[in-house]
């Protein structure tokens, strides 16, 4: 389904998309502070949806509620029609600070999700090795995280999330702690990943350019309390190849448009 969209950009994406994840009337309060209010959002299957907004707009809170790491004060999250009550094998999380075990090798880190799910050692190491190769880290299986650069560490985090083969990948500002060149490479790789893996991606970022570059759908969140102010679906430049996106007129227009609506919220 997503294949056809990427190859025929003229086709409207929002023709009754099938949702992998839905959030319904999510509210979250911390004491007197209202982080999220009555937030409802649909995440189309097989696509990448970005949560974009200024810092403190609750985008990471929403992602953690979808992950089952936080409980909403009210409202429900449904993944494939089933209500979320906690973390589950249908979702995998990629952390902003990588969250790798410093005492374990790349191979064991990548296999850690499978280890927690009770997969036998030989099988989980096979699968982990496959995804380590997939993210371009073959040869580093026996290295330790502190021997790797930030970008390489996040590739391990990505391999770990891919290895458990969850349908939904939740990414919390995954590229914010790596340098600019690495980030660009990551963004290109992410586009290929969305195209090749039949997974639903939910991606938190504070970078407008990054959101427009990688997303099929962008949900713009405004702060205090957070609600969805706008949903944008860039379609025109998806099939033009990774090298041409950044100079596509539609790409530039959308970036400008988002900046116009966000600028008043930046202190």
């Amino acid at each position: 389904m997503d294949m056809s969209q990427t190859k025929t950009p003229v086709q409207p994406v929002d023709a009754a998309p099938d949702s992998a994840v839905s959030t319904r009337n999510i509210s979250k309060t911390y004491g007197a502070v209202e982080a999220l209010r009555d937030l409802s959002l649909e995440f189309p299957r097989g696509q990448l949806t970005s949560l974009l907004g200024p810092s403190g707009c609750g985008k990471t809170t929403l992602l953690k509620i979808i992950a089952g790491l936080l409980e909403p004060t009210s409202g429900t999250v449904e993944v494939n029609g089933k209500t979320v009550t906690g973390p589950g094998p249908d979702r995998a999380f990629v952390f902003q600070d990588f969250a790798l075990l410093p005492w374990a090798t790349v191979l064991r880190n990548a296999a850690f999700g499978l280890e927690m799910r009770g997969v036998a050692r030989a099988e989980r190491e096979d699968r982990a090795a496959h995804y380590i190769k997939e993210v371009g880290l073959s040869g580093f299986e026996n290295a330790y995280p502190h021997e790797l650069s930030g970008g390489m560490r996040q590739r391990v985090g990505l391999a770990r999330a891919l290895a458990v083969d969850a349908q939904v990948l939740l990414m919390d500002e995954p590229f914010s702690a790596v340098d600019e060149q690495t980030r660009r490479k990551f963004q290109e790789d992410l586009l290929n990943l969305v195209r090749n893996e039949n997974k639903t991606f939910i991606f938190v970022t504070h970078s407008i350019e990054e959101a427009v570059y990688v997303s099929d759908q962008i949900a713009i969140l405004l702060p205090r309390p957070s609600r969805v102010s706008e949903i944008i679906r860039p379609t025109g430049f998806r099939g033009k190849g990774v090298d041409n996106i950044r100079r596509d007129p539609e790409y530039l227009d959308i970036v400008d448009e988002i900046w116009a609506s966000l600028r008043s919220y930046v202190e």
Partner: protein
Amino acid sequence: MTLLGYRLPGMSSLLIWGLLWEIIGQMGLTFFVPPLSEVMATLWEVIQTAAFRKALYETAYAFFAGVFFAITIGIPVGILMGKSRLLDELLLPWVNVFLSAPLTALVPVLMVLFGFGMKAIIITTTLFAIWIIILNARAGVRQINRSLVEMAHSFGASPWRAFTQIYFWAALPEILGGVRIGIIRAVKGVIIGQLLISIVGFGALFELYSANFLMAHFWAVLIVLFALAFTISEFLAYLERRVSYYAAKR
């Protein structure tokens, strides 16, 4: 350190102190300090006696049993305190009280409770060692990276697995630091126990030699004890360095 262009091996300053000891001993200023050479000769003799070997065995038994209980109880309690707010509120005041309390004053109470035998000595040893082990394990768990915990949770780790695969390893450098200090305190505990509770082991030897003014014997046993404590502590410091290579990268 280098001297006149030569690299000195570690602890060569001990040579100077040893020499000073020998000179003072040879001058015969006080019976209290016999020459080091005499102490060393006595040490060699003492080591070969059955009394010494019995004392070594008794002391080692009480020491290792006490340390064993301090570690196996202290580490889990410390980790649980670091994880659970309730348990922490409940136990922390007591841990702090016992850490700083003069435990020697408690030993007579222990004698009343547990008798005059090995049991009371082992418990004394444990009481000397356990509090710092608990506090360090607690500190280790509290500084744990939040996202490691979230990561384990998000991949569906059971509480037991999170405990054994995340909390223990993440806190390991602090835990080992606590064990090292705890063991040094346990050496104190076992000797005080042996002196106060029942005159056995090295405590009995100290008592015997000092009561009979056998100062060379007294110093010889003390040197053995220092050497043992130092060796154990250095071994643990080595382990600590091995695991803390990643501690800085957490």
